[in-house]
């Protein structure tokens, strides 16, 4: 089994966020970065499958120099090698454009499974995984809570999370693309031994010039207009009348607000 896991580096959970001068995104200086949470689960799931069926786990990340840390973390946990798609022209693009770059690299690599996290903790679009599957021309499943490789490694059975506590089991042939939900396993942490071993593992760098994507295809189709902090507001309303009347009025109001 050859599994490619796409990981993204996102501002760390306890980073103090500030909006940048043009209100287009957050200020990225003075921020610590971590591996996107669902991506850590994706790495773990890939490593578990490799432990069972053998093969190779490749960590792929797109972003500036700093994302090497995220790749190395995967290598230290047991992944075999890394691919770093690194080009300033690819930063700050939308999910479609970034997925195009990744699809080209991953397509050339060849794979049995591509894992992404369900969504990123920063933008939260939940698009890259499905677009990637589409561009690669393979079946996709999203919000995976379990992944079972079957039929002599020819197909995969995926437990998808639906709403209100419902799940769906879905079977599809390999190769396939799956976006992983947090919580489906217990991600391991890197050990010193793993970190030392990772020093010898390859991280291949890919720039835009290595790809045959026309510039037109990298024009974002989607753009963030403005980033702002939600305004905190508090409003108190006293409902008059007897307890019975007030309760009835309250129920009406809650229904109007769709709280009931």
């Amino acid at each position: 089994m050859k599994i490619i896991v796409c990981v993204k580096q996102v501002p760390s959970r306890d980073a103090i966020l500030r909006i940048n001068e043009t209100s287009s995104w957050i200020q990225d200086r003075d921020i610590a970065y971590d591996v996107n949470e669902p991506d850590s689960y994706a790495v773990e799931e890939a490593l578990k499958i490799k432990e069972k069926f053998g093969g190779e786990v490749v960590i792929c990340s797109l972003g500036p120099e700093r994302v090497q840390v995220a790749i190395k973390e995967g290598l230290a946990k047991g992944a075999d090698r890394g691919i770093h798609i690194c080009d300033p022209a690819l930063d700050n693009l939308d999910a479609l454009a970034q997925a195009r770059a990744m699809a080209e690299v991953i397509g050339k690599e060849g794979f049995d499974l591509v894992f992404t996290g369900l969504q990123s903790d920063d933008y939260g679009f939940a698009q890259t995984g499905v677009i990637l599957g589409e561009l690669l021309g393979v079946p996709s499943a999203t919000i995976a809570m379990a992944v079972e490789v079957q039929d002599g490694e020819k197909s995969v059975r995926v437990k998808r999370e639906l709403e209100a506590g419902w799940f769906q089991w879905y079977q599809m042939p390999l190769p396939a693309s799956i976006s992983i939900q947090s919580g489906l396993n217990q991600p391991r942490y890197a050990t010193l031994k793993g970190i030392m071993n990772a020093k010898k593992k390859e991280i291949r760098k890919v720039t835009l010039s290595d790809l045959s994507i026309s510039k037109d295809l990298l024009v974002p189709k989607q753009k963030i207009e403005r980033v702002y902090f939600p305004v905190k507001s508090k409003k108190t309303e006293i409902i008059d009348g007897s307890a019975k009347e007030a309760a009835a009025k309250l129920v009406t109001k809650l229904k109007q607000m769709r709280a009931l």
Partner: protein
Amino acid sequence: MTSVATKRMVQGGEFLITDANPNSIFTRDDLEEIQYQIASAIKEFFEKEVIPRAEEVESLNADTIRELMRKAGDVGVLGLEVPTAMGGYGQKKSTALLVGESHTKQSSFSGCIAVHTSVGMIPIVYFGTEAQRRQYLTKLLSGEWIAAYCLTEPHCGSDAMAIRTTATLSEDGKHYIINGSKMWITNAGFANLFNVAAKVDGKKFTMFIVEADTPGITLGAEEKKMGLTGSSTRPVFFDNVKVPIENILGEIGKGHHIAFNALNMGRMNIGSSSYAQLKRSISISVKYAKLRKAFGKTIADFGLIKHKLAEMAIKAYAVESMAFRTAGLIDDQLQSLDPDSSDYLARSMEVLREYAIESSIMKVYGSEAQGYGVDEALQIFGGNGYSKEYPAERDYRDARPSRIFEGTNEINRMLIVDMLIKRAMSGTLPIVSTGEQIIKDVYDTGPLPQIDPDQKDSSPFSKEKTLISNMKKASIMLLWQAAQKWMIALAEEQEVVAAISDCIMETYAAESTYLRTLKHIETKGEESSTYHITMMQVFLNDAVMRLEITARKTLAVIAEGAELGASLKSLQRLLQWQPINTVAARRQIADKIIDRESYPFD
């Protein structure tokens, strides 16, 4: 005084007589990516495994602690500094400092690891035989076994050489029979192995490896301690305990070398954990200060709260600067050794011994700065700080023993001066000639560098540079005059010795802080160094004042009349310094802390 232009081996204690160059010291900014990677993995281990089980640890659940130690072994933290040839990871001291930063949230378990890896494992790593390492080190590295160290006895703590535990050779010559009582033994409750100090024939100080299940060993009750409640601390009694002669550590009669070297290592570790604790104190108290309101605003808006936050950061900056500088000195020397050479271990020990003065400074200065931090954090929490519901209370209790163990701060203050004098007398450090020259210069109003009132030296921070050079001179002047007056009886004048130590420590802290700041400016530019510069300037401003007060008081003990007058005048000449506006500077630092909700950078 000479200037160090290129990197070379720096002697222990040399900082007092040589002005170092910013590029010659190691700073936190010099850490490499892999060091961060290691620290981050161990931090994750702590956050995922240890912190969620903090209550079990604090209630001294031995099964939990054993399980966590095995997991710590799996991650590799127990073998961090053990040479790779012995199954460890051979990491640098500077990596160990960084790793230590992830330990602050669970001091009891960190204490268990610290004792296990330092005084527990170091003696076996550096002084053990091949067979001893094979038998014990593997189990200690994996966390399958936990080690403890038995030195202190009911009647003797600081005066370790006065132990009464005996080891007598059995009639068949195959065993030593150990008898005695040990107190304050950390990890005792779950230890599998004790490194025990005893006197062979009642005279020869010797260390033994003793397995905990050897018949004749009994444990006393857990001490009812003020803090570190998740750390097992019990008396250990040895009643005719038979230990095979193969379990002698090192040589008979030379056990004190092992004991003291292990302590040196421990001192350095306390110093390093203290700046991390200061940063934690900042984080918890600034978050609280931003939420707590009084008189219509948050208490973080008040000047006196800002003062505390800023001062914690300044102290953390200074201690961290010293810690990485000292770690760099040790790493430089260790890197120059050939790990395959037969005397590698002996020479590694020499390196640690070489920087024993700096290690003692780290221990005293670090633990007292940490003491300030936990105290002020509790104060910021106000009444809530006194409640167990808030974290400041436990931190306060847990930090207190740092000033007591690994040699009390009083003992270490004596040691700093004692070791410097020994180095001066043996000619290792030219303190005597430097002292004579300084006295001559100071009294003859000779070519003494003074703070340049006309700013002829236009290089940035030249005033600070001269001031630090003169702080060294003032410290040596004190040391020289005290040594002249009391000669070998100086050790009896403990108040004077401690005061001289205080001046030396302020000097090391000031220079380390200054050099680190300059190196940061050189590599990252002045614009990115705003807070580094401000913290350095406030620290230096206050350090020189503290030094001056201590020196003036001490000179009045050493001399009187006209001689005292002349000395005071010389001191004044050396320490001319126009104070800066520390209120504005501290508010600036505090505002950054409030904005980031943590130490101003990292």
